[in-house]
């Protein structure tokens, strides 16, 4: 039991009159040690002593407490380097679960992950985000409950993280969200955050899809270990995620990276980047090329009765169709011009391109590379890598999970719950949950699954 573990650890120490309580003095070092272990910067006791600059006795004491709290595991042996094999110190990523969801205009994806952002299961289904918010909340709750049943273990959720198709204003919340941001018109006046908090008894975080995908790429994809990265998502809309000093940069209002709104010029026509280079343009131009016969591959698909979507244009270009390749190259060049400006401003180590089109097609990638290399200072491009994401659609779910785990283990938040053993006992969250339950009437919290049976909502 976490609380008793903390109490036991405290009671074993002699405390002089007037000396601070162990819980007050231990928290900063516990936070530091746990985050060293969680980030795998230290995986043995010796490494922990070296990295934290804490003494052997202090490290041993804190590890014992973290172990009693179920947050670390020392059962595995490492490789011997001469003497006895060292005992590895691992973060217990299955101590809690994170419920994650990606919402876009036509689909909803849900999943459950461990505390290190590893997806354990995922499911996607069609949804209409313009439907009343209460419908969405009901469906989300039912799917989250299903995810928890699927992993019918004593492990309980520690947080919910949502990825949404719009900018999420920054700076209004503290450690977790306490109000529902007006991302979509139908969310006006609907307390989604409060509802989910009440039903699952955990804190909620919401970020834009570009932000969650950037987080996914940074922590589980090509961006692992990088300090600076630019993530560009190409779809109907084009947006950028910016990583500075190893952290996602959100801007003053959470609106950093809205590059799709920038004006660009193509063939003498001026329009926004979204309009001139996004997937709507690719579909429109692809259909025209199929109908007037400029693209033999697309014309052939049309003859077979296929619909011409941006995917078909991309696939046609990939097998050498000149007209389709030209459409995508134009899109790539326009995106590349804007990305080059950002690259010159930020000097990233890597630019990761994402979105179904970029991931299945080389022409857009080539167009972007050409424009960025041609329009950037030589120092900016000297070691710059421009690659496409390998994570596919899972990046949003993985990233949403990372948003939650970063917030859960942020030192300022962690220090006030670590001795309680779980974040739902953080004083601020206890207060907010009480407020949410009071506002929503009698508690309707969904209990952690004790078996596989449930009544469907």
């Amino acid at each position, binding site marked *: 039991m976490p609380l008793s573990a903390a109490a036991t650890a405290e009671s074993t120490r002699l405390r002089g009159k007037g000396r601070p309580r162990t819980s007050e003095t231990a928290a900063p070092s516990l936070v530091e040690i746990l985050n060293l272990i969680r980030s795998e910067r230290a995986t043995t006791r010796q490494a922990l002593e070296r990295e934290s600059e804490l003494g052997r006795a202090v490290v041993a004491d804190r590890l014992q407490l973290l172990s009693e709290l179920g947050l670390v595991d020392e059962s595995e042996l490492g490789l011997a380097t001469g003497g006895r094999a060292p005992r590895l110190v691992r973060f217990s990523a299955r101590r809690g679960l994170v419920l994650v969801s*990606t919402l876009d205009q036509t*689909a909803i*994806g849900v999943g459950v992950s461990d505390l290190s952002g590893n*997806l*354990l*299961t*995922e*499911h*996607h*289904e*069609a949804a209409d985000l313009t439907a009343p918010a209460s419908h969405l909340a*009901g*469906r989300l709750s*039912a*799917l989250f409950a*299903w995810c928890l*049943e*699927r992993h019918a273990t004593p492990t309980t959720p520690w947080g919910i993280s949502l990825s949404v198709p719009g900018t999420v204003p920054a700076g209004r919340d503290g450690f977790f969200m306490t109000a529902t941001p007006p991302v979509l018109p139908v969310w006006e006046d609907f307390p989604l955050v409060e509802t989910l908090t009440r039903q699952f008894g955990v804190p909620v975080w919401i970020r834009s899809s570009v932000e969650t995908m950037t987080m996914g790429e940074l922590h589980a994809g090509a961006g692992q270990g990088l300090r600076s990265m630019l993530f560009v998502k190409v779809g109907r809309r084009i947006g950028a995620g910016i990583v500075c000093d190893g952290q996602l940069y959100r801007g003053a209002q959470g609106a950093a990276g809205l590059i799709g709104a920038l004006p660009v010029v193509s063939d003498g026509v001026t329009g926004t980047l979204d309009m001139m280079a996004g997937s709507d343009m690719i579909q429109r131009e692809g259909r025209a090329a199929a109908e007037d016969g400029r693209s033999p591959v697309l014309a052939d698909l049309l003859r*077979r*009765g*296929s619909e011409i979507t941006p*995917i*078909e244009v991309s*696939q*046609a270009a*990939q*097998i050498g169709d000149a007209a389709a390749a030209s459409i995508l190259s134009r899109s790539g060049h326009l995106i590349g011009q804007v990305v080059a400006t950002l690259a010159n401003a930020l000097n990233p180590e890597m630019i990761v391109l994402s979105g179904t089109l970029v*991931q*299945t097609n080389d022409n857009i990638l080539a167009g972007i590379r050409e424009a960025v290399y041609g329009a950037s200072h030589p120092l900016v491009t000297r070691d710059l890598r421009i690659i496409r994401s*390998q*994570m*596919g*659609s*899972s990046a949003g779910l993985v990233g949403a999970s990372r948003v939650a785990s970063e917030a859960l283990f942020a030192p300022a938040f962690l220090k006030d719950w670590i001795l309680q053993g779980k974040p739902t006992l953080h004083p601020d969250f206890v207060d907010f949950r009480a407020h949410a339950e009071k506002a929503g009437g009698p508690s309707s919290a969904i209990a952690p699954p004790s078996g*596989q*049976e*449930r*009544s*469907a*909502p």
Partner: protein
Amino acid sequence: MTIAGLGPHGERAAPPERVNLLPEDIAAAKSATLRVAIVLHTLNSDWTRLQISGMLGTFGDCGVVATEVVDCGFSADRQVAELDRLITAAPDAIVALPVANEQVVAAFRRVSAAGIRLVLLENVPTGLLPGSHYTSLVSSDNFGLGMMAAAGLAPHLAQDAVVGVLGFAADFFATNEREIAFTNWMQANRRDVRTHVKRFGAMDEAADLALRMVADHPDIAGFFVVWDTPAIAVASRLQSAGHASLMATVDLGEDVAIALSAGRPFVSVAAQQPFQQGVAAARTTILTLLGRTVPAWVAMPGVSVTRNNVADSFQTIWRKPAPREALRLLGLAP
């Protein structure tokens, strides 16, 4: 054709017509001397036999040789061993149905890394991505099948009825989708109906689980079981125990066809089209080996079967006459 579900990574479905072969495709395949291997969960089911029939026929028409058809006996360990063996045999492509999730994912990555084209059936282990690790998933619209079964059962349920749902404990894309879709349909269209969900790990557990569910909830009026073989076992045990629950399931096996013809307890079956699915899988494999573009997810729509259309649906799905007993029960044969 309407596909209700989304793919394992949220992909939109492509219809089977999207992988139709043109005469030039067939000619190119015939001149290419292609070899494929088929790796399935079992060879002992009507569904598998028809899938294989659809695949082998199509491969044969196109001059593609199926070097072997492997039976994994529902065992993840055996599937891993067979895949590792096939990497050495190096066929041009493998068409496989992953029998598990975490236990087999690494073996499938090895197949892909060895340069063997991979076309998956019904299930994608979490972490494998289309385009990177496999070419395409070919499956039924399992979400649509779950909705179809619910819509077929609903008219037989009284107001405020209670329904038992028997899902599959293994984390398997197809059965997950059916279970979610069934409860979702009830929630959206019959809010008065309450559902209780349990999941069986092995097929012979399903009947015991159902008996325990009716002991805990004697008011259960109907069951949805995520495929037909355990559904038949559940119906039989419940009847022996004197419990008259209505049944809905997925797949029109011979036993279910006979039971459906009798009227009760089976009232709704959402049937897959395994032969057509086998054809689509073979066509997808051939196109990918020819360097043509293929969609990440090809989905086959289901067929809603009740007593009224069981005889003709059986013919459509299985390419043979309905069982004699079914025809007799329907009054269509002496």
